[in-house]
């Protein structure tokens, strides 16, 4: 299975990134990224920590401002200083590793806040949309709960429902299951899989190789701020053509395997989210 929603090169691009550079001070995190995500496409970004995956994602909706390069969202260059970024962001849902649900609101409050403030929907309309999305993620019975009263998996599904309530054209996932207890990962991945099957355009940074293999149309392998390898999941994960991808996948898929050449190597930490 090479993807659930086959796309053709003629589908309009939702995200088009070209020549993207990002540095924090003197540290170059992204060193020339070109990437296109087309409508209904699911693209997974994999790679070792510190490779710039999260930063790439955060440059797409301008949570980080690119140092150089162009990021086009739905045909709009978001790096243009005259662009109303708040408006563009309403079309892009983002799901964080640490959920980031608003702690002072119930689940329902979380889902309707931006609908009311940004989209100016009526309370009734916003709640209707919210209920539909809560059903989709299986949390109808948790609408009145506060985030602190939910499990991590429930919080993340609520966060997905919150993003979906804005009717985004694109969903960004930044390691959505990395902060979850192992037994809760499946529920979140199931919701994401349903979304993909429903035709949502998705850009997903993940360490879940099974998810990347089964759900994505394309897998992008990043290392040290550049895209090293890119192609269908079966190809990049199944038979990578570069050494860097091969070593990374070996470590991820078989963590207990210790290669002599790797002993003593230290991995740089990814910048904190």
């Amino acid at each position: 299975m090479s993807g659930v929603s086959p796309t053709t090169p003629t589908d309009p691009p939702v995200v088009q990134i070209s020549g993207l550079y990002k540095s924090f001070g003197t540290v170059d995190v992204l060193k020339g990224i070109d990437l296109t995500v087309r409508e209904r496409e699911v693209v997974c970004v994999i790679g070792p920590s510190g490779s710039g995956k999260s930063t790439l994602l955060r440059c797409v909706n301008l949570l980080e401002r690119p140092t150089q390069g162009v990021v086009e969202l739905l045909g709009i260059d978001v790096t243009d200083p005259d662009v109303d970024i708040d408006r563009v962001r309403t079309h892009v849902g983002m799901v964080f590793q640490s959920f980031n649900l608003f702690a002072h609101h119930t689940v329902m409050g979380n889902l309707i806040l931006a609908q009311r403030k940004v989209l100016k929907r009526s309370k009734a309309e916003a709640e209707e949309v919210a209920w539909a999305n809560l059903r989709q993620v299986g949390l109808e019975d948790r609408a009145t709960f506060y985030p602190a009263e939910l499990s991590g998996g429930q919080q993340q599904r609520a966060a997905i429902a919150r993003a979906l309530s804005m009717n985004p054209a694109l969903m960004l996932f930044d390691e959505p299951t990395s902060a979850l207890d192992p037994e809760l990962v499946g529920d979140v991945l199931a919701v994401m899989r349903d979304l993909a099957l429903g035709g949502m355009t998705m850009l997903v940074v993940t360490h879940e190789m099974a998810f990347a293999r089964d759900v994505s149309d394309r897998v992008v392998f990043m290392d040290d701020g550049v895209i090293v390898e890119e192609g269908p999941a079966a190809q990049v994960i199944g038979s990578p053509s570069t050494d860097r991808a091969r070593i990374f996948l070996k470590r991820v898929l078989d963590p207990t395997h210790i290669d002599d050449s790797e002993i003593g190597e230290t991995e740089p930490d990814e910048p904190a989210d």
Partner: protein
Amino acid sequence: MPTDPNSPALLATRPRMSPRKKAKISQAAQYGVLAIVIVLALKAMDWDKLRTQMFNVNVIASMLDALPRAFANTLLYTICAFAVGLSLGMVLALMKMSSVGPYRWLATAYAEFFRGIPALLVVLSIGFLIPILFGIKLPNMTVKIGIALGLVSAAYVSETLRAGLQAVPRGQVEAARSLGLSQSQAMRSVVVPQAFRIVLPPLTNELILITKDTSFVYLLGLATSEYELTKLGTNALNQASGGLTGVVVVGLVYLIITLPLGHLARRMEKKNARQR
């Protein structure tokens, strides 16, 4: 492994007295000391003196008429000072987080200055110096003490508010912005409500401190109608043979104000715990 509790191997490693037994004896000793101190104090106390010097009925009766007024004045001065402190403190807190350097320096200098001098000096300066220097006549005592204590309070409040605002995790703002909220919308809808919960206990504490500091108002010379609790209590000391009754009475009234405040803060904290 020997199972007999009296076997030499086990006895050799066992402490002479078990730690649990030691703790019990120590606790009993502490209760004993407490009881002895209380009994000695009660025995040594001159109960007649206590009644005439601290709870003198005549003095209490003579204070009753003026007490409601003094109580109201203390509350009024407190509320006024807190209002000034809170609004000025908010401005200073925002200045401290400003991207404009001079704003930050000014706010920091302000806080350092007013935290570093006694409130008493500020009250004196506002009451006497400002009218002389600027030719402004401050309309009444409430405004004078409100401004003076408010200026001091703002220094502390600004630090509390800044810390509260910065204690809200960055991810909360990022989530709000990624949903399309503007910076100011994110601030109003997400950061401030959460920061409010964080600063509630320290702000209540500040309110209690101000309540007590309103006693400095006596420095400015009070008309009878402007008396607050401390002035009323210390005036009552002048009555012959009343002893300390005056200050005991107003001390209890201060507690009537401050204890519920502390209780209220704890209750609000508990109610908010669900949302943490």
